[in-house]
Structure formats: C-alpha cells, structure tokens
C-alpha cells in the first residue's frame, strides 16, 4: 500500500484528495475509539475521493483547521485530522 500523507500535516492553502481514514492512537482512555472516529469522519463527508482545500488555521498552534470539503466547509482539530490520509496536489 502506498504511503499517504496525513491531513494534519498540511498548511493553509494546501489542496488535495482524501485517500482514506486510518485512525492511529485515537483510542486512549475516554476517547471515542478508532471505529467511532472513522464513522464520524465519514458522516461529515471525509470519504475517499472527496476534494479538500485548507482554508484557515487557528491562532494557537495553527489549530484547529477549517477546510473546504467538496462543496461544504468543515472545521476539525489537527488531532482528528491525523486520522485522515490524503494525497496533496503538487501543482498549485
């Protein structure tokens, strides 16, 4: 399987394609767990093949991030964005 970048590594202005959901270390005590996180992300439209564009970053630690996801806008923390595999457009 190819090695994909994670959405959490991206910066404002980056665009690309969602390639998959792969939670990693999101199952600590009190957390919702990998399966639940995957389903929530899917329900919010983070589904393979969706296009995104990182629009804004928060003030502290550039977190959370706001993005355009296909034709809607979504905000999430980098922590959850880490569960999302992406392929970044190389041509701006």
């Amino acid at each position, binding site marked *: 399987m190819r090695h994909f970048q994670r959405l959490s590594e991206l910066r404002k202005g980056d665009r690309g394609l969602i390639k998959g*959901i792969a939670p990693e270390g999101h199952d*600590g*005590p*009190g*957390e*919702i767990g990998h*399966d639940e*996180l*995957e*389903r*929530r*992300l*899917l*329900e*919010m*439209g983070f*589904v*393979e*093949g969706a296009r995104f564009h990182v*629009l*804004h*970053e*928060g*003030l*502290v*630690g550039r*977190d*959370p991030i*706001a993005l355009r996801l*296909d*034709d*809607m*806008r*979504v*905000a*999430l*923390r980098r*922590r*959850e964005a880490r569960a999302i595999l992406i392929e970044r457009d190389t041509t701006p």
Partner: protein
Amino acid sequence: MSEAVLGTRIALVGNPNSGKTALFNALTGARQKVANYPGVTVERKEGVVLTPGGRRVSVLDLPGTYSLRARSPDEAVTRDVVLGRLAGESLPEILVCVADATNLRLVLRLALELKSVGRPMVLALNMFDIAERQGIRIDLKGLSGALGVPVVTTVAVRKRGLNDLLSQVDALAAGQGATASLWHEPTAVELRQAHREAERIMRTYVKPPLRPDTWTGRLDGLLLHPVVGTAILMLILFLMFQAVFSWATPVMDLIDAGFTWLGQAVAHYMPPGLLQSFIADGLIAGVGSVVVFLPQILILFFFIILLEDFGYMARAAFLMDRLMGVAGLHGRAFIPLLSSFACAIPGIMSARVIDNKRDRLTTILVAPLTTCSARIPVYTLIIAAFIPHRTVWGFANLQGLVMFGLYAAGISSALIVAFIVRKLIWRSASEPFLIELPAYKVPDPKNVARGVLLRGQIFLKRAGTIIASMMVLIWFLSSFPAAPAGASGPAIDYSFAGMIGHFIHPLLAPIGFTWQMAVALIPGMAAREVAVGALGTVYAVSGAGGGGMLAATLAHQWPLATALSFLAWYVFAPQCMSTLAVVRRETGGWLWPVVMFSYMLALAYVAAFIVFHTAALLAA
C-alpha cells in the same frame, strides 16, 4: 373533522442548518407547543397544520443530525423518535427529510439511511431560492426516482412550497403504510457504500452551481482570520455585554418597580399577617427577583439566535476551540459559558450542544463560576460602600477596576476548575472537534423573534414553577417561627433562617463574616441578589431608600477585610438554588448538584479566608 384523519403525525428530520426549524415555524405558525421529552431535557417542539386534503397533521421538529447513530442527547432523541423507541412518544407516520438545497451531499446519505426505517418519507429541498440564485440545477424527477421518495422544493422563510409539501403528506398518508424497519447502525463499510450511492445520485441529478456563493468565503477570510477574526469576536462579545447590561437596565428597573408596587399594593390592601407576608414577600418578591432578569435573557438570546442563524456560532467555536482546549473544554462550550454571564440557567441548558458526556458535565460544573448578572447587585452594593471612587493610574476608575477584577476572577476560576477536572480527574482526551461551517445566511427576522420569545416563555415558565417554589421555601425558612412578642431584633433573627445563620456563624467567623451576614446568606440561596434585600432586613434598614442607606450602614458596620471577603465569597459560592435545581434536571440526579455545591462552597470558603486574612494583615 372525523377521528380517522385526525392523528397523522409527521416528523421533520435533517442536518443541522438545513432551515428545519424555519420550515417548522412556517408550517405551524403560532400553533406550537414546546415541552421536554420525558426523562431528558431535550426540547420537544410540536405544532399542528391543516393540509390541503383537510388532514390535521401534527408536526414534530426533531433535533438536527447527520446520522441516526446518535452522539449527543439531542441526536439520541431524533433516533429514538424515528425508530419509535422513545417511551411515551408514538412513532411518526411520515418522515419529512429537510435538506438545504445548496448543500445536498450529506443529507442525501442521511435520506438513504432514513429510508431504511421503512416509514413513508418526503424529501423537502429547502432554501430552494438560494439554490436557484446560485444556478444549481436539480433534476427533481430524477432525484425522486433515484431515492424512491417524493421530492418537493420549499422556501420556508417565504412560505413557498408548503402546499406542495403538505399535498405529498396527504398522498403518503393515503398510500400504503410503513414497512418493517431494516435500520441498524451502519458500519464504516456501509457508510462508504451509502456515500458512493449519494455521490452517484448527486452527480447524475444535481448540477453544480453556476454562480457559487462567494460571500461565505470572503467573510470567512475576515471572520476566521487568526488575528482579525479573534478581534472581531471580542468586539462582538463586547457589544453583546454592553447591550445586555445597558439596554436592559431601564426595563429591569421598570419590572423591579412594578413588582415592588405590586408587593406594596398587596401589603396595603391585605390585612397584615402570614398570608400577606406570603404573597408580598414570598411570592411577589420571589418571582419578581427572577423575572427582573427577563430583559437581559431576551437580549442575550437575541444575539445568540441572530449569530446562530447567521452561521457565526460555528465560527466562534472554531476561534475559541484552542483557547477552551487549554482548559480542557470543547470549542462548543463557548456558547454555554457565554450565556452564563447573563444567568447560569440558560447556560447550563445550552450545554446540550456538547456531544460528549464528560465535556458536557465539565461545562455544566463550571458554568456557575462565570459572573452571572445576579451577582451584580451584590457587587455594586459592596463596591459602592467600600471602594473609594478614585482614579488610579491616571485613567482607570478604581470601582470599575474592582468590578473587572471580580469578572476576571470568575472566568479564570471557571477555566482553572475545568482544567483541573479534565486534566487531573478525568484524565482523558476530549471529544473530537468536528463541525460544519455553514454558509452565511441573512437571518430571518420572524424566526429570530420567534426564537427569542420562545426563550422568554421557557424562562418565565421556569420562574413560575421551580424558581417560585424555591422562593417560597426560602420565605418559609425566613418567616417561621415568628418573632416572639416584644422581640427587639428583626423577625428573621428568630426564624429557621436566623437559627441556621446563627448555627453556621462560627463556621463563617474565620472568614470574617458577622452573624448578620450568615443569616442573610440563607435567603440569599434563593437567588444571589436576594442577599442584598436580606442584608437590609437583618440590619433593619429599609431597602426602599435605594442601596444608598444600606451601603452607608455596611460601610459603618463592616471592616474592609470583611467586605472584601464577602466579595470573594460571592465570586465562588453556590448561592443559587435554581441553578442547582436545573443541574439536577440536566444531569438526571443529585450527584452532580451535590458535587457542584461542595466544590463551589469549598472554593468560596478558601478564597474568602485568604482574602480576609490578607486584607486584615495589610490593614494592621
């Protein structure tokens, strides 16, 4: 009207921000009833509408959701009603899936999920005018065929398409009934399949906008900008507080005067005695002391609903998330904490927007630490009596500075307590922050007005029930037993409240409280500002002459250290039965109110102790 057509029940289901509530308002107009679902404090909104076919239909407005897999108490209600699992709630015969016509992707997946429930369903493409303006072309016939449900277009705020929708309801009600529900919690694999299906439908029947909305992007450039956006948020908050505190004052004075007049009228026309005291001091004064906050609550909710309808609240949560996250709170906790500045009760109730139970409990626990408006009369009285009216550092008013300090102490203690709870006690990462940023929309004045009035009604209803009964209890404690004949002290001194006050005084002596203060704290449990009146009673000064006389008496009677200690006490003390009652209702038990009471009491005691002894030391 015959019985046969009377009972049709429909439920509105849809994503958040789909204009579902606007559609509900347009359908039912003023004929709506707001209550709570049994056992949970999720609002249940139901209304009645007459269809073109003469059918009397009751419409249920369900909380917005992206999925039937519920995450918050609100969403659980939607799931349970749709699946007929909620005790005491009969299954709706027809589902109306409400969609924002400009944002169909997620709702199409929800519609597919809803179909598996087996109820007859109609899809309402709401805000269709905006979709047309943007040049989104939707093949309604094709869409309807692909989904296997009738599709209508509506513009709730213009009341367009309502008849089409209701005609479809007529047709569905006359058609074959429900089939067995095949719904189960979709797995990730099934969600992906449904997405692919929704995506295919989207591609085939919906053409992307020719003139997409560019305003949202442009506004977000400002409003979500890390620096500019944060500054704008602060400005909005500043304006809000200005409005809450300055616009409300004249009306509040009027209400206060009205209740005082009413109390005096009763005192004048009724023979003195227990009944007179009960009505004038217990009921009228009690309810009055709560109703006086109505203007502030209306103004606060006016802003909150306006910002919500405009689409700004999700942005505020985005901007505040990291800051709140430092304290272990969720970005959405911002709204409840904001509301708590007017009154902790609406604040605690609005914590329902938080999905995660622990995040929600933490928010509820710290909400009463933010400076609610009931503390203002107490702060003003003590500040006026003890803090000199003086300019410091060349520009700041010392009294204003102390007031600001008290507010800062409130909010910072709320954040610190939240931090301790989340980081030390419930040592776990918090709920994912994952929210849709809806497109900006011009709020509809009618819907805003209806929302504000609804909040007002809910508040008054509570003032009329829980809060009034608390007030009556406090009145009882303060009035019985009556003072013996020939008693020299104020009557409250001989009452249960007086006894409790004297009893607890030794405990409060280390923080510099006089026994009169201990006595005043008991009626002060009804609502914080009642302590002002109670102090007036125990010091046997008429409260009628305004705060001036009482302030002068206090300035004479208390050392400065005591006054400062009293202020510190009021920043933290759980001096509000109504808040505790609401927490009990929201959390479904006595555990959390007891936890809240204990920790706030401990904080108040420690803070007052430190302040008293430091001030006494410095004065010596």
